[in-house]
């Protein structure tokens, strides 16, 4: 048939994996980064910078534990401040990792196989950074375990009707499931590293982590089932975690928070910022470690398209907020809109609109999607924009609520900034170590993308 000789549409695009690779070159290329690549001066220099930033966090938290939350800029009426802004920002960033590893797995988007591992690592580190903020914000973090239901001598139990308690369960489940998913994905790759390692110590360490994985057909069969089920279980988490985070706001009656659009708009914003972070990390990493064969332009373009789509959902959310402010006839809601545009935080709101709505529209043009420099810049702008969004939601609404007598301004202190910069340092430190001690691309999943891995005969024999 004539149509069969034509190249199918899918094949005309940039391939997911560059041609010429075999099972062993894939394993070699990825595991050599961990096993035999010498530690470069650039890596050490960068590590010193990010590790110093992480130490800012240690200092800021140490001082916080001595003095209490009074060292932060929070006060009545703005009791949430940076702690919650940063918490929501970090949690949101994590979402892209889970979306890539779970939802794209269920949708059989094979291009995910080369970015899921480090996107999942990004999720874990981002959620770890996020967790620090509400913990520190409780004021007495050493008593944070009171949030969990356990029999205690105070004869106290948590109030399960509170969104803040829901949050504890949502975030801790999210972290645990992400960790389990990540570890399960790593088991066969640990075995690869074990078998390739030359030093006995390294072999022992990866051998211990691989738990004796030997690639038996029975094991793979159970493994694939468990992996698919984990993907299916993590999928609702992608949508639910930020929904629950948005309930922290939406269940309250503060103008600008009490809206039903919050859950979907938060989830879209989370995926938006998450993909921005994926691109911000993937672009330099693929250049430094020469992984252009596995993380191709197709991956970057796809991520850019997801960013564009979720960015438009976020823009719709802003549009709806403005529309409801105008259309609802509620003086508090319409004042909120006026205050965002003309009030003391108008510059932040203008910057937010520029970063989240206007600038990312350049991604409609292929020229910007295929230029790594531009793509990195746009992703960075989106990360800034999404941080500003959370700042606007938390601070502007609290600074101007129902009573003029309870209005106030929020001024973050140097400790606020140090804590924020410190979590960025902690995140990057973890990333820095991750790329050198674990395979940052899933070796076995990449191998299944090669045509040699497909066995069609098996199905015929069964019939």
């Amino acid at each position, binding site marked *: 048939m004539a149509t069969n000789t034509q190249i199918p549409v899918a094949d005309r695009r940039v391939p997911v994996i560059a041609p010429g690779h075999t099972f062993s070159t894939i394993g070699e290329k990825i595991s050599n980064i961990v096993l035999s690549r010498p530690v470069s001066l650039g890596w050490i220099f960068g590590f010193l910078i990010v590790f110093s930033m992480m130490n800012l966090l240690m200092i800021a938290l140490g001082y916080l534990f001595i003095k209490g939350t009074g060292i932060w800029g929070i006060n009545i009426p703005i009791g949430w401040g940076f702690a919650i802004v940063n918490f929501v920002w970090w949690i949101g960033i994590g979402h892209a990792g889970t979306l890539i590893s779970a939802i794209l797995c269920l949708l059989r988007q094979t291009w995910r196989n080369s970015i899921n591992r480090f996107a999942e690592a990004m999720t874990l580190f981002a959620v770890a950074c996020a967790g620090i903020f509400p913990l520190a914000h409780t004021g007495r973090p050493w008593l944070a375990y009171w949030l969990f239901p356990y029999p205690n001598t105070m004869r106290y139990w948590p109030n399960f009707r509170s969104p803040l308690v829901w949050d504890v369960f949502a975030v801790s*489940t999210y972290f645990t499931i992400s960790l389990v998913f990540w570890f399960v994905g790593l088991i066969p790759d640990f075995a690869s590293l074990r078998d390739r390692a030359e030093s006995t110590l390294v072999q022992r360490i990866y051998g211990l982590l691989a738990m004796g994985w030997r*690639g038996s057909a029975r094991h793979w069969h159970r493994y694939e*089932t468990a992996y698919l089920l984990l993907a299916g279980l993590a999928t609702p988490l992608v949508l639910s975690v930020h929904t629950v985070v948005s309930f922290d706001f939406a269940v309250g009656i503060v103008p600008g928070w009490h809206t039903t659009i919050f859950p979907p708009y938060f989830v879209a914003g989370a995926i938006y910022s998450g993909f921005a972070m994926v691109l911000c990390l993937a672009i330099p990493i693929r250049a430094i470690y020469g992984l252009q064969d596995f993380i191709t332009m197709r991956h970057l373009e796809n991520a850019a398209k997801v960013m564009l789509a979720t960015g438009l959902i976020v823009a719709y959310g802003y549009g709806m907020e403005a529309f409801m402010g105008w259309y609802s006839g509620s003086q508090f809601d319409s004042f909120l809109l006026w205050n965002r545009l003309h009030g003391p935080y108008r510059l932040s709101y203008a910057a937010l609109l520029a970063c989240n709505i206007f600038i990312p529209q350049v991604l409609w043009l292929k020229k910007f999607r295929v230029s790594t420099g531009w793509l990195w810049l746009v992703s960075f702008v989106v990360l800034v924009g999404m941080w500003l969004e959370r700042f606007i939601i938390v601070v502007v609404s609290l600074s101007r609520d129902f009573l003029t007598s309870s209005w106030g301004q929020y001024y973050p202190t140097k400790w606020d900034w140090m804590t924020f910069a410190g979590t960025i340092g902690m995140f990057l430190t973890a990333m820095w170590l991750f790329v050198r001690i674990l395979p940052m691309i899933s070796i076995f999943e990449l191998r*299944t993308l090669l045509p040699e891995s497909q*066995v069609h005969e098996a199905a015929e024999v069964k019939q």
Partner: protein
Amino acid sequence: MTIETSESPIYGLMAEFDSAQELVAAAHKTHAAGYQKIDAYSPFPIEGLAEAIGFHKNSVPLVVLIGGLIGGISAYALQYWVAVITYPVNVAGRPYHSWPSFIIVTFELTILFAGLSAAIGMIALNGLPMPYHPVFNVPEFAKASENKFFLIVFSSDPKYDAARTRSFLNDLAPRMIAEVPS
């Protein structure tokens, strides 16, 4: 093709193949020849390989279902017990059994328990962690996580016979056959 022999008790006979297709075909033939206790090893999951060696019973989904049910039911029961029986607090006049508020924690714990059951269940059913396994005694087996494919007939198989099994495997045209010392 090389033939390796050793003196210690034999765990099985292992054949090495170059491709996934050869392995699946060999597994089918070995299973069809009446060998029951066989296994195949590959660096990545191969569709149909588990069926080819006669493995059909996979209890991971059942474990996950049970885990999820335990998580969900215990989460709801805990909330009910706390909010209605042991520590009833009037929050803004809501009923003690305000079930819509309890859905989120129930949902989260369902996912948590099901996810942990999937991972732990898979690892446990696979008999891992297993610090020692005889197949690793074959030096070539290090390639099982890279680009080689292996088939083993265990010596515990009723049909196993050192010479006949070896000649059977030989007919499958493997790269090499090795005795696996236990």
